[in-house]
């Protein structure tokens, strides 16, 4: 396990939950001594980040025996928010127990692992039944101009869907709220001529699985799922194309694994650090949070500059047969960190610091008619070292792929060729 030193700012944004494990260590002094050796002290806190990106701390106390006498394990959750799903915490604690077994003499890690994965299954290492919705495939029959066969990868017990077309280095196209891969159908054919178009549906959208509980969805879980997706397909030399929530998720992923990315196209999006939002976004956020259900087909149709056919509008509504499928879509506007102390804002500031050190070429593409991301262009330009001149698309709005897909794809192809493919 890799121990880290979180900043005071980060810790102040989190709420410690010390009841996860509490143990007197006098029953097995050799374990106490092993823990002291592993963390390098007998009284204090060692922090680590779990596979679920949650921050945990092991606190050791020396009550006068000359070795650690007591151990407590803390979770650190977003300060005023409900804690993450129980199955994530349980899996993280299993990982911690395995680490303890590895450093402790006289404890068999294999036995711990076996006990954890079999015996503990009874109390639930995964989601309870009914916690995930899956849109029936017949909702996706007769999609206009989206003939691609869906493919799936399994991520944390969830099925994440994607389509791909073409060959060569991957061109990863990330949609946002409240759309799905279908949004890119007019950009896939031209870009598949210069690379392998890979178009996933975010968890909670399109053909991907849709957890029901709000606390399954967080900024960090979306980033984690995207990292896992990229690793599952082993994508390298990626050209990232992102819009709306595809931006925050894609750019945070890029900051986490820059070695896998070659270039990025940032369209009508940015990476929110907790400050500066357009009035249009705040109005949309308020509207969405007061809605108990979204009419997604109507929303995309009403926002698009191009006139959508009935079949196209229906395709946007297809993933959501009812409100039960919409937890992720209803939450996206709220997950945008609009304050400095909002979940995700701190991690975004860290990511921006990383992005500023990278040399990869970046092409900003903004629609003249998008009020929601009007102010994001300057922020995006300031975030990267190697930024090409912004492409401004007239007669396009927020869903730039819908309004001017072929035109945007043409700009991207020319830019890729100019930059040496």
């Amino acid at each position, binding site marked *: 396990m890799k121990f880290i030193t979180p900043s005071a700012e980060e810790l102040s944004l989190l*709420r410690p*939950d010390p009841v996860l494990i509490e143990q007197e260590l006098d029953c097995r002094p050799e374990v106490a001594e092993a823990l002291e050796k592993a963390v390098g002290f007998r009284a204090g806190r060692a922090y680590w980040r779990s596979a679920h990106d949650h921050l945990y701390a092991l606190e050791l106390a020396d009550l006068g025996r000359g070795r650690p006498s007591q151990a407590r394990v803390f979770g650190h959750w977003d*300060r005023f*928010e*409900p804690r993450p799903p129980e199955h994530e915490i349980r899996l993280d604690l299993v990982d911690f127990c395995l680490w303890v077994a590895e450093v402790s003499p006289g404890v068999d890690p294999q036995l711990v692992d076996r006990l954890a994965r079999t015996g503990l299954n009874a109390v639930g290492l995964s989601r309870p039944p009914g916690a995930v919705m899956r849109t029936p495939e017949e909702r996706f029959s007769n999609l206009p101009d989206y003939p691609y066969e869906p493919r799936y990868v399994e991520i944390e017990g969830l099925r994440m869907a994607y389509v791909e077309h073409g060959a060569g280095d991957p061109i990863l196209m990330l949609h946002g709220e409240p759309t799905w891969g279908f949004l890119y159908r007019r950009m896939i054919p031209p870009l598949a001529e210069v690379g392998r178009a890979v178009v996933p549906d975010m968890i909670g959208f399109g053909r991907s699985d849709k957890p029901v509980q709000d606390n399954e969805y967080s900024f960090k879980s979306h980033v984690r799922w995207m990292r896992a997706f990229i690793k599952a397909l082993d994508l390298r030399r990626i050209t990232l194309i992102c819009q709306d929530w595809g931006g925050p998720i894609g750019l945070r992923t890029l900051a986490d694994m820059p070695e896998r990315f070659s270039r990025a196209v940032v369209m009508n999006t940015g990476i929110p650090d907790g400050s500066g939002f357009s009035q249009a976004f705040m109005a949309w956020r308020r509207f969405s949070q007061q*809605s108990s259900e979204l009419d997604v087909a109507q929303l995309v149709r009403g926002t698009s500059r191009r006139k959508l056919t009935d079949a196209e509008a229906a395709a946007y509504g297809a993933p959501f047969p009812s409100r039960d499928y919409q937890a992720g879509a209803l939450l996206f506007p*709220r997950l945008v960190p609009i304050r400095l102390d909002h979940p995700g804002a701190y991690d975004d500031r860290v990511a921006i610091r990383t992005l500023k050190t990278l040399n990869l070429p970046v092409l900003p593409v903004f629609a003249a008619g998008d009020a929601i991301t009007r102010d994001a262009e300057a922020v995006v330009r300031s975030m990267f070292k190697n930024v090409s001149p912004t492409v401004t698309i007239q007669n396009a709005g927020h869903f730039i792929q819908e309004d001017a897909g072929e035109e945007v794809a043409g700009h991207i192809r020319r830019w890729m060729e100019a930059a040496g493919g």
Partner: protein
Amino acid sequence: MLRPKPNWLKSMFPWEQKSLQVNGRTMAYIDEGDPQGRPVLLLSGNPTWGFLYRDFIPILTEAGYRAIAPDWIGAGYSDHPREDSALTLAHHIADLVSLLDQLRLCGFVIVGQDWGGPQGIGAALQRVERLAAAVLMNTWLYTDYVGQFHASPIPWTTWHAPIIGQYFQKLVKVLSHRGPTVTSKRGITEIEGLAYHHVFDEPESDSVVLTWPRTIPLREGDRGFADMAAIQRRLPELAGVPILLLWAPEDIVFPIEYARRLKELLPHAEGPIEFNNAAHFLQDDRGPDLARAIVDFLKNKVEVKS
């Protein structure tokens, strides 16, 4: 599983206790009235529970609202953990946010007294787009005014001082077995007193009664100070939200100066409307009058359906 309510309680408090899991613990709540009605969250403080709002529930539901009265973790019919850290201001806020999320409440109204104020408003600020209105009674939302009672060692700060507090609160049970009865203005009956007190009968069940006073921010660095300061900093976000102040000026815990400071921070708030013959637990002293004032206010400000 919630523990069953005793039979003697049912005639005074007939409503079914529902429950859900928040942050790994069981939270009990009353959920009465038209499910389509605007949700009104009735939030009590130390050391009470939903019983404090028994006079509000029929009046609100008859007026078409959905009355939801949760018991804070550590109090009432919710879990009573011993861990101090599970009972802090930040934790209570996260617990209520979890309830707002799980019940999918849109366009809700916060009604809060004592800790119900900062905990309710703290949670509402996390979901501020879904907040329709707020009613505050004998409470506070700031770090920069402390009244004489809270700062005074006789009896307040002594009652919950480290080590000493364990004795006063857990053995003598000065708050959990005496609070609402001793301060009552209308003359509470013995059985009503028991309704408040019996939830703390189990040994080690009254940790929250000790954690709450210890979280009151008196000076910077106090536990709860940073969280209360964060709430105060964010009060401008409530500028567009109708707010009503109802106050019992005879309360020694939150005298009228506390209402005046709230009014400075929330200048658009209506009131304070003062209610005499009422002390700290004004919902118990003047329940029906307060409930009717809330209904009158809400009828003028927001739709009955959310």
